Structure formats: C-alpha cells, structure tokens
C-alpha cells in the first residue's frame, strides 16, 4: 500500500503520460498483400469476394480487391517476438514503459476493456500502413470487480504511404492490483488462461479429514471401525453409537458394492460437473453405505440392485473421489 504522498507522486508520474506518443510511428513489416488477406479471411470465415476474389473485384466499384477494414491494426502488429517479451525487459516503447511503472507499484494485472474503431478509407494491396499512437486519458483510481486500478485510453491513427487517414482506434485497458484473479497478474500482457471449474470440495475437520486424506494420498476408501465392539460406521463420527467407545481404527473397503438407490441429476448444471450425472447410494460388501457416482453407464441402464466396483480416481484437475462402474456379468 502506498501512503498518500507516495500515491500523489505515483499519479503525477503516470498522468504525465497523457498526450504523449508511444514513440515513432510503426510501419507495417509487410505491405498489404493478398496472401495475408486470404489467411485472415479463412480464419475469420469471411467469404466476401471483395477481399479475395480478384476477378470479381475487378468488376466491382473498387476496381480491385481491398483489405478487410477490421484487419487495419493487424498490418502494424509486431508479430510473434512480442510473445517473448519479459516483464522487466527494457521497454520497447512508452506504453511498455508506463505499464512497467504500474507493475512496480503492484498494478500488475491488465485487461482490455473497450475497443472502438472508425474506418475512413479502405486499404488495398500494395499499401504500406503506418500507425501512430498516443495516450489520450488516464482515469483516477477506480475500484472494480477484479481489483483496484486505472483505465488507460489510447488513440491510434492509421495512415497509408500517402498520408491518407484510413482509420482511428480507441483502445482502453485497466491496469489493476489483482484481487480475485491472480491468474491475470501472471500474464502482464493479456490472454490469461482460465482454469476449468472443479467439483466442490468437502469441508475438512477432525472427524473426517483422515478419511479424505486416505482418498487423496493413498487412493483408498476406508471404513471406520470401533476398536471396542468392531462395529463399522460411515459417515465417520468420533464415538461408536453402539458402545460409546471413542477408540477407533479403520479397514480398507474392497469397493465391491450394490446400488441401493440412485438418481439422475439433470438440472441445474453446476460448473465443475458433467450432466446427466448419476448419484447413487452404494451398499458396500462390508455392510456400510457410501454415496458416490456411477460412471461409464447409460443412465437408462441404471437399476437398483446393480453390482458395481469402485476405485479412487482423479475426476478433475484437483479432485480425487471414489467412483463406481457397473460390473460386467
């Protein structure tokens, strides 16, 4: 956290960038060309003949093919080497320089929030595209759902070799101190990978953690046993309900079971689970019951009395669970 003095100095430093240029104009590494246009149209699924059909385009009002307008900023992109820029590499331009100042003060997250582009003149094969970017506004500090930060708005003007104005793009990013999304912080330039949702984890306490530890560390399903009268019990609890003994150990289940009842869960669909999902009360050979899933089964084939065999499995990136499958007879 910055004290008010530091914050003032920091804001003065970042606000000094308003109105400044990123650096010299960027000139496209390739002139506008039919090959890149074709590739872009393929990827975007854009079949407009004005972009790719030279014969058809020759008869159009343009007299030849044009580049798709929304490709405008593609022509001046710096290409693949951008992916290898490290956060503390010397800044290639003032934008990187400004972002590094933010990073230094903990505003390590970045997310693009808005992009608006206006198009004035079409680019056509053979044109050489230039772009010229400036910082337009930097907001006061804002609290957002993903963290506290500053909105930076930049304006980029695109021109061709004759100085003709092709378009103007307003691009806004939020540089923020990540709170809920640490993943966004690791990638200082966009494209944070989102993790797949996982199943809800059980709450762990004195009376059940040992059971889940056996699942997670040893791939075992245990059944609690009273040391005094040897009664088995599940779910685990600290005292034997038969003889009130607090002494217990456990046995490992063979995971041979019979379906006592089941349900097919269809709605609502909770992230982390796949549907329809079969939940079942399994009567284990040892005599206790365990609620679990029956997998690799068509829900229509589920019947009460079905013999099943269970194993402990990794069901998603972070969750291990006992899961049961029908025993082929």
């Amino acid at each position, binding site marked *: 956290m910055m004290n008010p003095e530091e914050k003032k100095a920091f804001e003065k430093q970042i606000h000094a960038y308003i109105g400044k240029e990123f650096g010299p104009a960027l000139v496209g590494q390739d002139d506008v060309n039919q090959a890149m246009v074709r590739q872009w149209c393929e990827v975007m699924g854009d079949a407009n003949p004005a972009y790719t059909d030279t014969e058809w385009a020759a008869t159009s009002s343009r007299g030849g093919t044009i580049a798709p307008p929304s490709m405008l900023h593609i022509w001046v992109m710096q290409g693949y080497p951008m992916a290898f820029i490290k956060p503390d590499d010397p800044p290639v331009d003032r934008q990187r320089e400004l972002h590094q100042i933010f990073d230094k003060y903990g505003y390590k997250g970045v997310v693009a929030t808005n992009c608006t582009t206006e198009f004035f003149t079409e680019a056509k094969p053979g044109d050489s595209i230039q772009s010229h970017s400036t910082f337009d506004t930097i907001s006061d500090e804002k609290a957002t759902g993903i963290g506290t930060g500053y909105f930076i708005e930049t304006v980029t003007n695109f021109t061709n070799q004759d100085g003709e104005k092709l378009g103007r793009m307003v691009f806004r990013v939020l540089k923020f101190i990540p709170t809920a999304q640490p993943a966004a912080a690791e990638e200082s330039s966009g494209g944070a990978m989102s993790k797949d949702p996982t199943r809800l984890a059980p709450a*762990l306490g004195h*009376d059940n953690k040992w059971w889940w530890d056996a699942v997670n560390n040893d791939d075992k399903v245990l059944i609690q046993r009273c040391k005094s009268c040897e009664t088995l019990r599940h779910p685990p609890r600290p005292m034997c309900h038969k003889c009130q003994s607090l002494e217990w150990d456990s046995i490992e289940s063979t995971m041979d079971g019979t379906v006592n009842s089941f349900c097919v869960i269809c709605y609502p669909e909770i992230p982390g689970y796949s549907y329809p999902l079969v939940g079942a009360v399994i009567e284990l050979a040892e005599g206790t019951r365990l609620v679990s899933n029956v997998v690799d089964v068509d829900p229509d084939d589920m019947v*009460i009395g079905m013999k099943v065999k269970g194993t402990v499995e990794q069901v998603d990136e972070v969750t291990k669970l006992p899961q049961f499958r029908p025993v082929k007879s």
Partner: protein
Amino acid sequence: MLTSIKDECAIVGIGMTEISKNSGRSELQLAAECVSAAIKDAGLKPHDIDGLTGFTLDHVDEIEVARTVGIPELKMMSRMPHGGGAPMSLVQQAVMAVSTGMCKAVVGYRAMNGRSGARYSEGVADGPETTDAISWGWYMPYGLLTPACWVAMHTQRYMHEYGATDEALAEIAVAQRDFASRNPNALFYGRPITMDDYYNAPYIVEPLKLYDCCIETDGGAAFVITSAERAKDLPHTPAMVRSAAQGAAFDQEVMTSFYRDCITTLPEYDLVAKQCYEQSGLGPDDLDAAIIYDAFTPIVLFQLESFGFCKHGEGHEWVKGGTLGPDGRLPTNTHGGLLSEGYIHGINGLAEGVRLIRGTSVNQPKKNIENVLVTSGASMPTSAIIIGK
C-alpha cells in the same frame, strides 16, 4: 404440573405478505409486515406479544423483528433447526411457552427472499466448519447439491420397493396446481396444469420432473398463539392446538438419511405422528383435511403413510382418484402448497390450515372441517401439529 398441551392454546392470528419472485424489499421488512399483520389479525397489539420463535435459517433476528414491529419485551426467544423440518416446531415452542405461563402470546414467523435472494436450488455452498458442513461434504463432491437430488434418492427406492410410478406424483402435482389456480395469492393463480403438462416437463433429477418440485418465492408468513382462555375474547374462530410434536430418529441426517436399513419410510415422521395422536387422542380418521409439506411430490406420500392414512408403501395407490382433491377423503394443500402457492417454508401452509378451521379458505371443502393436520419438511428432523375447532 401440566400433563397435556391439548387445547391449552390456540392460533388466533395469521399474517402474510404477498408471494412473489422479487419482493423488492428486505427480509426484515417482510418479517415485520407479516408479524404485524398476524398480530392485527389476532385483534392484539404489539405490546401483547412477549415471545418470538423462528427458524435458524432465517436471516432476520428476532430482536430486530421485535424493535421493528414495536414489541417492547420478549420473555422467550427460540430458533428452530433444519429448515423445512422446523415450521410446526415453532408452534410447539409457542405452545410450551404459553401453556406453562412463561408467555402470554407468542409469534412465530418466517421471512425470506427465497427467489430474489439466496435460492435453495443453487445448492449448498462453502461455509464454516460445522458438523452440518462436514455432513454435506459426503454429497457435494459427487454433485448431489440440491434438495431434489436427495429426495430423488428416497423416491427411486420407494418406486422400486412398492411398484410406485410417477402416476401418483402426477396426481399430487396436478391436484395442487388446481387448488392454486383459484388462490389469488398463489404464484400459480389462474394457471392450472394438465396431466400432459406434467408428463411432458423435463426431469430435474430423475425420477423427479419439473412439476414435482416446489417453486421458489419471496414472502413472509407469521402466526400468533395465545391461551385458549384469551382466544375466546378475540375476533376469529380460534384454531385450537390439539398437538404439536417434533422428532428426529436413529441415524438422522438432514435430507440424506441414506444409511438406515430402510430408506423408504421416515422414522422421524412415525415418531412425530405417534406423538401427535397421543397428545390429541385423535387418529387418522378424525382428520378432515391436511396441509402436507410438499417441497417435492413424493414426500407427501411418505407423510400420509407415517400418519396412518394408509400402510407404508401404499400411499401411491391411496392418493389416486382424487383423494386429496376438494371433494376427496383428505383435501390436502388447498392453498396450492409449496408446489404452487409459494415457498414460505411451511408457515404459509400453517396459515391455510388456520383458514380451513375458520372456514375461510378460497378452496374451503364443502364438508365440515373439525381437525386439520399440518406438517413440516420430510426426510429431515421434523415436526407437525393438529389443529381443530
């Protein structure tokens, strides 16, 4: 010492807000509105009330209700556990307080933004490390996250053991929407459903379809209990409390009691039924109508069986042919129930039970209603009452 609570107390006031999908106001306000309405309905003033009882699940503290409504002194506060199992135990609390002389008049209430706020269909979520949270951990990782999943498990086994089909469930679902279609305060007002509607609806958790499941609503409901003696001077026909019982049974869990030898009967309900009949000296033949907790259709069957209207495993046959309809043997959930009036955790059902005794239900049966059974949630620790004229 008091040896029986039978007819010692009466429900003399009921109050409800409208039922909606978005109340647009706080749960405290809903609570204050229904509590205040119940007191007014009883012909009493806030300063006549000296006890409050509610749900542990309620987000509104009784002291906030008291100061908001203007109840100056509380001599008894209680909160009853296990959600849908709680409502009639509020009556038991109130009756115990009034019949022992601890309190003069007790209000029970439930207020919830159950649709626009926290919804039960969203499933159980993380919380502090309570025994309750630990218990949910045996089900959550496997995706058994909602009440529909847990009830479906009992239902599947019930169908298997007794040859029941969804015909019985359809009977209940359609009959109650029919009642609701004539109840202006019901969410299903003017919207009866057909058998085809029932069968064509999607599964929520097989074997439960859409119309087997209750609705989620916003609203509040409350009641006032005072002594039989005092009730004589109050404006409405008192609904005398004939019995009020609570029960939990061996190997009890909240909706997931899957570890008992038999999971198609509800021993906690057998326990509650036994007490209700013992306290009141009545039997199933003396009950003229019922408000049976119907978060899901199959639990109506389980409760009818526990209360001895038919044998265990026979409920699915017993309900067929209009048994629960307006002219049937046991008109049930004449307000439309939780399935189709609204879900105010059973206190809205209690209000309807009182209306049946007063003779003011919009679906008042033609026959004389002397005694009404009102129950709470099934497959959890639960409670029930019998009220009468």
